[in-house]
């Protein structure tokens, strides 16, 4: 994966539209299908919303760094914050049969990306690495 684009936003929900717009553009540049781009948009939005909600506990004065790496193999989205450390072992969506508000974001992220992993080397805050392989390249 070669080309990199970096977006830094304040941790306020009103800036999430910028993340969504850039995700769509980067998906198109990467040649992801339009249908999958809609899923990408939702998944990256959910990941950034989780940063605001959980890592920053709603504090809108922090910052979120969203980095896109695009190449012939696919798209990688890296989301970094300096908030509370996430514990990947306890992150899980709600049972989809248990209808209640919340708990869907993780499902949207996991169904979209081929790899979802927190970088253990990040000391302060979180670095979430989301990888989407282009189907043709991945299958070959």
């Amino acid at each position: 994966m070669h080309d990199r684009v970096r977006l830094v936003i304040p941790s306020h929900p009103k800036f999430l539209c910028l993340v969504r717009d850039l995700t769509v553009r980067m998906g198109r540049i990467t040649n992801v299908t339009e249908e999958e781009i809609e899923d990408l948009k939702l998944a990256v939005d959910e990941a950034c919303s989780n940063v605001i909600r959980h890592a920053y506990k709603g504090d809108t004065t922090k910052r979120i760094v969203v980095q896109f790496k695009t190449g012939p193999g696919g798209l990688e989205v890296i989301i970094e914050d300096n908030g509370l450390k996430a514990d990947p072992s306890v992150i899980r969506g709600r049972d989809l049969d248990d209808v209640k508000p919340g708990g869907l974001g993780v499902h949207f992220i996991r169904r979209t990306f081929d790899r979802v992993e927190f970088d253990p080397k990040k000391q302060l805050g979180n670095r979430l690495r989301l990888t989407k392989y282009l189907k043709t390249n991945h299958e070959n």
Partner: protein
Amino acid sequence: MKIELTSHSSNIVIVISGEIDMHSSPELRARLLELIDKKPPVLLIDFTSVSYIDSSGIATFVEGLKGMMPYGGRLKFVSIPPKIAEIFGFAKLDRVFEIHGSMDDALRF
């Protein structure tokens, strides 16, 4: 996101346009719960012009539905764009929400 209130055959219709996300869903939640407080028998949500919904928007509607169920109220969704319908389907919410193709269909059933 914009919210307009209209009526169809004496029922309240919430017409939403634009994106329902973490930024806009608190406003939607406030408007929805304010209406539900009045215990309308039917509340129609017109999705025709909704271009996007995230999990916070979905949670808002789940909360609305749970607010109407105790008194037998019915929350009905109308004209959901295909992508949003797919999201509801994935989340298995198409089993709990009443989803209709048109206002007339929504009031017929």
